[in-house]
């Protein structure tokens, strides 16, 4: 297993000459841009990890003249706050990435969907957007960006729910296929990318795909911005090269008593101490949109699990039965086990339910509830029962 160790990187927040990079991109062909992104090995930084170059390639291949670039800034995963920092510090690079994506796929319109919880950032973001529009006009780029605000719904981070929300509807995920690259917002071909992904594309155009793909491992190229919180002396936002083990991460950020790390937020995986050494943070091990929460031995993993299930029961959109009923029953189920109202092997039934939700749920929310559920129950069974 390839292991890169823990290396701090400064790509995402690096100050760059925006105009220079955009001019470079403007003088490249659509194919050249897409090839660079493909060669870099960049995968989506929102958590799902779809290869960005492929997404752009599919969108570019659509014949429909009206296309969209959507920036997913609906950062709602518990424990994730890096997109806020990126927008706060380097919004011009997010806009730049959108324009480059626009050039690559042939879209003239961009929409940033910003979660309502980050509305306080909007005045500053609009000001930066104005100067961005001036710069691309000077270069001769035909691309306009506008904002849509969310209103407090976790599910709108799911791409098709986000489109519904932009269109003024309830944020209920759509059936797939068709995928967004064919039929996204307003039914038009859409490339929807995470905030950090878009910044990464701009850095790839600047530094070249070769130097970017030097970072990370075969399955997880590049660097990633991590949101570190929980029982750590140094909570915050850190850009690290992909391919470190959880142990190396804990050595850097732990408080000396770390018993578990929740990688990828409530929809992610719980890694217990005994698996720190052999678990790589990345697509070959535990994937993450950046959320890294550390728990020390004073914490009850029952409380952690209960908190996550409560979260999912509230945030499930309620559209499909496996997720709507499943989330509620998992929550009720662990409460019953804790109170001793049912035998402890009832937990096995609940794990089966979580597995069923993975297969039967319509979108990523219901499909990923089982990640945290299974990994917490399997590794901390006693804490859930007693």
């Amino acid at each position: 297993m390839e292991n890169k160790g823990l290396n701090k990187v400064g790509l995402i927040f690096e100050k760059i000459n925006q105009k220079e990079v955009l001019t470079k991109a403007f003088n490249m062909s659509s194919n050249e841009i897409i090839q660079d992104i493909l060669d870099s090995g960049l995968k989506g930084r929102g958590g799902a990890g779809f290869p960005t170059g492929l997404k752009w390639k599919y969108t570019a291949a659509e014949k429909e003249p009206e296309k969209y670039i959507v920036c997913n800034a609906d950062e709602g995963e518990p424990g994730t706050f890096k997109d806020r920092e990126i927008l706060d510090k380097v919004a011009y690079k997010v806009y730049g990435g959108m324009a480059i994506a626009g050039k690559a796929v042939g879209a003239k319109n961009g929409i940033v969907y910003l979660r309502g919880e980050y509305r306080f950032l909007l005045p500053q973001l609009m000001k930066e957007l104005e100067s961005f529009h001036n710069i691309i006009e000077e270069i001769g780029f035909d691309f306009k960006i506008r904002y849509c605000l969310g209103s407090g719904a976790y599910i709108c981070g799911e791409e098709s729910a986000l489109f519904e929300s932009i269109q003024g509807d309830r944020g209920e995920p759509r059936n797939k296929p068709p995928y967004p690259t064919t039929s996204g917002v307003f039914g038009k071909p859409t490339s929807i990318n995470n905030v950090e992904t878009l910044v990464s594309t701009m850095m790839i155009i600047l530094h070249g795909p070769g130097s970017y793909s030097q970072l990370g491992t075969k399955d997880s190229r590049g660097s990633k911005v991590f949101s570190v919180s929980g029982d750590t002396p140094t909570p915050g936002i850190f850009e690290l090269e992909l391919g470190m083990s959880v142990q190396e991460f804990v050595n850097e950020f732990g408080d000396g008593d770390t018993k578990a790390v929740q990688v990828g937020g409530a929809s992610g995986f719980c890694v217990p101490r005994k698996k720190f050494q052999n678990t790589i943070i990345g697509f070959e091990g535990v994937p993450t949109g950046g959320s890294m929460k550390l728990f020390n031995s004073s914490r009850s993993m029952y409380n952690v699990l209960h908190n996550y299930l409560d979260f999912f029961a509230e945030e499930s959109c309620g559209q499909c039965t496996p997720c709507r009923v499943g989330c509620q029953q998992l929550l009720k189920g662990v409460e019953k086990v804790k109170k001793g109202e049912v035998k402890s092997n009832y937990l096995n039934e609940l794990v089966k339910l979580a597995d069923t939700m993975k297969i039967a749920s319509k979108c990523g929310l219901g499909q990923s509830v089982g990640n945290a559920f299974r990994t917490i129950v399997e590794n901390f069974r006693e804490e859930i029962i007693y």
Partner: protein
Amino acid sequence: MYQVGNLVKKLSDKHGRSRESIMPILQGIVEKHNYLTDEAMVEVAKELDISAAEVFGTASFYTFLDTQVRGKYVIRVCKTITCSMKGKSEIIQTLEDMLKIKVGETTSDRNFSLIETNCIGWCHKAPAILINEIPYTELTPEKVVDIIKGYLHK
């Protein structure tokens, strides 16, 4: 209750009258009046020439588009895991004692509403709250008292 007056018309002039204008219009009403009344939603439906049920359908999906009475300052306390671990309960206790309301309630002078919310993206500076759109982080009961005092004198 408030009179929505010509606010819906003004917002529709600004954001347009197509289906996708619903969200910014409803957000605009909430920004001014803190919550949506039935009257306001019917007015939006009329202005956009769609069914009021459609407007209610959208509004009722989103937690920030409140359809029940809210105060001038809506305090949202993050209850997700890190804030929970770092003292959310003390923050709630302090707010309840100070405002003399429980979670989910609004003060009788309609100045404050106290509600819990899911992760607001400040886990590294937990515990955190939002008062309307403004985040306050790394809170202690003492800090909360000072912040609320500031709002009382506004």
